[in-house]
């Protein structure tokens, strides 16, 4: 009996010690960071595209008679996001256009992977500041882009591959045997776990909704004619089984993602389903930018060493 009590008394300490050891090892044991390059490149292209599209309506967004002039934006922010801030607040109206132009150059610099440590930080500052300057034009894509660029900026990563930084370093004789760095590892783990939070929250929150149980949610989505995607309304409306399938597969992919993305046997299947989910959303709802940002982030689940081995085996 005493032995049982002794074991029970030891359990909390052993549990905490083991969990701490496992967590520390998971976060800090270097893994290959090659895939951060494609993640940076894709997010950079999306940020550039976003910046350019904003430029099409430049005066509507940034002009003194725009949708939300600076003074109103600041007033709104103080009322709703008191800790929020924006660099646009200190930019005089007369130089907004040149700052926008410089912003484009910085974002392009980060996209091609030049001076990633600094260009990444400034890119995030620009994305964040613009979100706080124009809070009424935001949708899911903006927060996703901001979050993943933040992780690359904070860790100073993204230049591990497909970058000018990498090319210059190798030209100067830097040829690491392995592409394993602590900061790359931290960036990968942050993105991986944040993805699990996103999909988990998205999936579990749907369980409150009757259409996700009754298998009609996909019909509700494609019936929204404002999105102007490829219409599959008639197909779904006439085939209730397909409607149910298109509802249940995304739902369960999201719910199971945080668990099944980790075992290596399940990972390819979950990734295929996830990519399919985002492509379907892009096709039917037109949310391509959001989908590509999520697909880009998912690349961190591909083992860079494995990919290089596959590519070099040809």
């Amino acid at each position, binding site marked *: 009996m005493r032995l049982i009590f002794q074991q029970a008394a030891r359990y909390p300490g052993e549990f905490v010690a083991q969990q701490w050891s496992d967590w520390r090892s998971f976060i800090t044991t270097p893994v290959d960071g090659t895939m951060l390059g494609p993640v940076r490149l894709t997010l950079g292209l999306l940020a550039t595209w976003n910046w350019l599209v904003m430029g099409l309506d430049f005066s509507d967004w940034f002009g003194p008679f725009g949708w*939300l002039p600076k003074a109103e934006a600041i*007033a709104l922010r103080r009322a709703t996001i008191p800790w929020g801030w924006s660099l646009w607040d200190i930019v005089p109206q007369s130089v907004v256009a040149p700052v926008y132009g410089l912003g484009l150059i910085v974002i392009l610099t980060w996209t091609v992977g030049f001076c990633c440590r600094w260009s990444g930080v400034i890119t995030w500052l620009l994305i964040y500041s613009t979100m706080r300057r124009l809070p009424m034009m935001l949708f899911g894509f903006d927060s996703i882009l901001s979050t993943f660029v933040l992780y690359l900026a904070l860790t100073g990563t993204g230049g591990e591959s497909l970058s000018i930084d990498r090319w210059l370093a190798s030209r100067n004789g830097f040829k690491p045997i392995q592409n394993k760095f602590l900061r790359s590892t931290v960036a990968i783990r942050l993105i991986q776990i944040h993805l699990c939070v*996103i999909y988990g929250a998205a999936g579990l929150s749907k369980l409150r909704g009757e259409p996700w149980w009754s298998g009609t949610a996909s019909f509700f989505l494609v019936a929204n004619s404002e999105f102007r995607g490829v219409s599959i309304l008639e197909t779904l409306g006439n085939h209730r089984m397909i409607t149910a399938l298109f509802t249940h597969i995304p739902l369960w992919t999201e719910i199971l993602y945080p668990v099944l993305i980790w075992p290596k046997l399940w990972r390819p299947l979950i990734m295929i389903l996830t990519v399919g989910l985002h492509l379907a959303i892009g096709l039917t709802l037109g949310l391509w930018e959001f989908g590509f940002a999520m697909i880009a982030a998912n690349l961190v689940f591909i083992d860079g060493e494995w990919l290089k081995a596959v590519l070099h085996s040809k």
Partner: protein
Amino acid sequence: MIGLRNGDDQPIAISELNDRKTSPMLPNHNTGNDLERVSLKRSMIAIVVAIHLAIVLIGALAAQPSSLLEQALANKFLGYFQILDLGQGYRFYAPSPAPTAIVTAKLKIRDDDGRIHYKTVRIPDRNTGPRLRLQRQLALANSLWTEYERELTAPGGDHSSHILAKSYARHLGNGVAGCESVELFVHRHPDPSALENALRHGSKLTLKELDTERFSTPIESLGVFPCD
């Protein structure tokens, strides 16, 4: 990575001890102090990452509906969420896909002869391209709807601020010669209850039918705003 061989960015510092032991390109001459420093650094990083991700999780759990405990915890990190743009609930299309807000602006214009005529602007403009611009317009309409709903349900019934409504109206009226006022209307489409009814009765719907009034919520006026 420019400067990879400088200071803390040296592979030896970044890759830490494991790499020192395994990488043939690096000499293995750790001192006790090095070991302690690197171990401490790794522990600190693991703690910071754990705290950060726990806060992110708290933010995701605190979106409505949530418990008082979840909300109280999230309130502690409000500053952190807002400074870094974190704390989203990620409740996409939950609990069920919501209808889209549509704003209609009716501009009252007096021409040179003193006659009144009206011009209507729809947000979003379905002919807008590229797609990202349409998404921005959808967001504009949705923000106005959110403001309207928030002010309608605000404790104390403060419906007076209308920051977005006033600002949108001023923007729409700007540059339109003779513009006297802008009246803003909002409705949502497609109405979920109408869709449910159609589904229940086995109706075969087309997008054209969905664009009819039957599938819209009632149009509500947000007020008349001067063009100044």
